[in-house]
């Protein structure tokens, strides 16, 4: 894959986006429902253009792209300020990798083509009492035979399921055994969100969005044929789900943050602070940090393209991005002054919107979700810096 080829791809994507990317999408989605429709429309458009699933294998239209090509496509999606693919993310990355790598032939045939028609998936992993400590999940699945059908009957509660209110299907982790290590009793199921007993309740976030949901499961019947991997092998399958996207999103987001620097510049000008040395210093410092976040995300992907990935590298990229995003929104919030304390409409699907209170609150999504900043620190300290692990077995005195 040479540079000429990649540059040609870049120009091709750029001109396609110029003709097809939606304009004014931030203003167009004033309700969450509108946002959902716009997301769906944009995803289907990208499928048509051949840019929605570059990471899928070559037998799929638009698939078979090398990581270097994927990087180019994501750079263009970011620099072109197109809507981020939020709704389809869990489907094209998590569900795809899981089913493609661990699913049965039957599951592949049934579910993968549907994703390209707009069927969406959500994750049913976390629980109210299983957050960072995911393996301690308690949602029970009991195996029964009913009217000659082999079923799991599932009871429990899931939380933080992104866009579950619009999802057709769910990647569900359940406990099928309480014996042995807690990871060993976990099983991976594919669940129809319209099955009887599934109740979805969107969670009201502090900035007014409803990006996540709680999912209540009350005697939900899931056929055994919907199991991925063996019973009790769900933890390993879940690792496939969680490692399906490594680096592209954080690169894309870093580029988008760089592309949003004008919002702070505009604020500085609006407030007539263009000659205020203190403000200029903070702005200059932020520019360097944002460039640094882009550089480490680029480096991580460049290493992966060359087959290098060291334990902990991904954690460094994530903690760099999430802290820089916090700094970005905090500078905007500070410079925005009193104006930012008056309620203003929020924008869905964007982390750097210029509604600075909302952006600040939203920035926690990246220091908490997807393995919190603290979990990443632990990974870096124990696995990368090889600092001694704490002894297990803490007991309440």
């Amino acid at each position, binding site marked *: 894959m040479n540079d000429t080829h990649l540059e040609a791809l870049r120009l091709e994507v750029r001109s396609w986006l110029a003709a097809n990317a939606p304009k004014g999408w931030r203003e167009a989605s004033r309700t969450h429902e509108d946002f959902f429709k716009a997301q769906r429309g944009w995803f289907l458009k990208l499928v048509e253009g051949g840019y929605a699933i570059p990471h899928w294998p070559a037998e799929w239209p638009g698939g078979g792209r090398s990581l270097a090509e994927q990087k180019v496509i994501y750079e263009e999606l970011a620099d072109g300020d197109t809507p981020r693919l939020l709704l389809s993310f869990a489907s094209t990355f998590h569900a795809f990798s899981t089913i493609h790598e661990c699913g049965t032939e039957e599951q592949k045939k049934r579910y993968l083509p549907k994703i390209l028609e707009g069927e969406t998936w959500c994750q049913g992993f976390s629980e109210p009492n299983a957050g960072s400590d995911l393996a301690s999940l308690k949602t029970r699945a009991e195996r029964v035979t009913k009217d000659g059908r082999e079923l799991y009957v599932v009871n429990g509660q899931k939380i933080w399921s992104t866009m579950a209110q619009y999802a057709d299907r769910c990647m569900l982790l359940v406990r099928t055994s309480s014996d042995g290590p807690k990871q060993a009793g976990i099983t991976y199921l594919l669940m129809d969100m319209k099955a009887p007993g599934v109740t979805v309740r969107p969670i009201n976030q502090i900035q007014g969005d409803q990006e996540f949901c709680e999912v209540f499961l009350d005697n939900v019947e899931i056929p055994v044929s919907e199991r991925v991997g063996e019973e009790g092998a769900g933890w390993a399958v879940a690792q496939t789900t969680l490692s399906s996207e490594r680096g592209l999103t954080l690169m894309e987001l870093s580029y988008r943050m760089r592309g949003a620097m004008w919002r702070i510049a505009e604020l500085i000008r609006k407030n007539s602070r263009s000659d205020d*040395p203190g403000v200029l210093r903070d702005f*200059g410092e932020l*520019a360097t940090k944002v460039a640094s976040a882009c*550089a480490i995300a680029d480096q991580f992907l460049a290493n992966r393209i060359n087959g290098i990935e060291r334990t902990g590298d991904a954690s460094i990229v994530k903690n*760099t991005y999430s802290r820089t995003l916090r700094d970005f929104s905090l500078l905007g919030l500070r410079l925005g002054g009193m104006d930012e304390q008056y309620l203003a409409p929020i924008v869905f699907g964007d982390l750097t919107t210029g509604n600075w209170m909302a952006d600040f609150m939203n920035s926690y999504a990246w220091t908490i979700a997807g393995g919190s900043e603290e979990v990443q*620190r632990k990974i870096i*300290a124990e696995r990368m810096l090889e600092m001694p692990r*704490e002894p297990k077995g803490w007991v309440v005195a």
Partner: protein
Amino acid sequence: MIERSELHDAAQKAFPHDALKPDRAESWKLIAEMGWLMLPLPEDAGGLGLGRDSAAAIHFELGRALCTAPVIPAMLTVQALGASETLEDRESWIERACGGEFIAINLRGGGDVTATGDTLTGTLPAVADADMASHVLVFAKGLAALVPLDAAGVTVSERPLWDESRRLFDVTLSGHAVEPALVVARGDASHRLAIRLQAELLFALAADSLGGATTILELTIEYLKTRNQFDRPLGMFQALQHRCADLKVMLGAAEALLWSEAVKPDATLAQAGGLKAHATEVYRFVCEEAIQLHGGIGLTDEIYCHLFMKRANLNVQLGGDADHWREALGREVLAALAG
């Protein structure tokens, strides 16, 4: 074409980072022998024509070992010789300089040297290792020239530093008449050369800083693994683990920025300044934490922490401080994003 990784390997072999603060005279000899001073010189000037990232690789590794020899100023002055269109016997100057004749330069910016015609007067501060230099490269308005340090009207006085790994001197010129043969650049060319060397200095200091920060962080983590308190290694305490992890993140991101900026042909002076400000602040902060994490022993001269901390604080000042460069970069980015 030499890969950057080869330069890192070679520099690590010559300056292993478990031998901190090696002897200056021996180090200088080794640097000249390795041919590193030729790295940034264009090929038509007898050099290797390699980019900033190559020089930065050397500065990074020598920063790791707290190198005491003037490799940073030497690479700057060699480049100035290579760029000169007025210097007589330029080729032989380049050969001498690459072979180990040290030409010094001011590393701080500022100073109050004025040129009246070709006569220089004033004090040039922060000239590194002037005691082992034959000449100093002086910039005054519209003029860049080599000044022999043993010439009449030139005095050199050392200003002892907290940093034990470097030596800085004030060079005072009292009506020194520049020899026409030693003019390096005039007018616009002199101004352009000054800007170019300033950018190279900023990259060099950033690389030296991130190299130093890498070593002191490694040493600190090593210490936390071996020092036992409360029947366990200190490194087992999560409070300390998280601080080390944060330092690692900070350093990793800053290093990625260094290598990405070093290969951008169009990086501006303010961007180089922003990088330098960030890298030196990271170095300073890693050292600040290193002393705290070592506890009492970190406050003694029995251990290495103070050497890094003092060098880091000097790096913060050399080449212009963070306030200066962040403001300059802020202004530049703001102008580029004119609404």
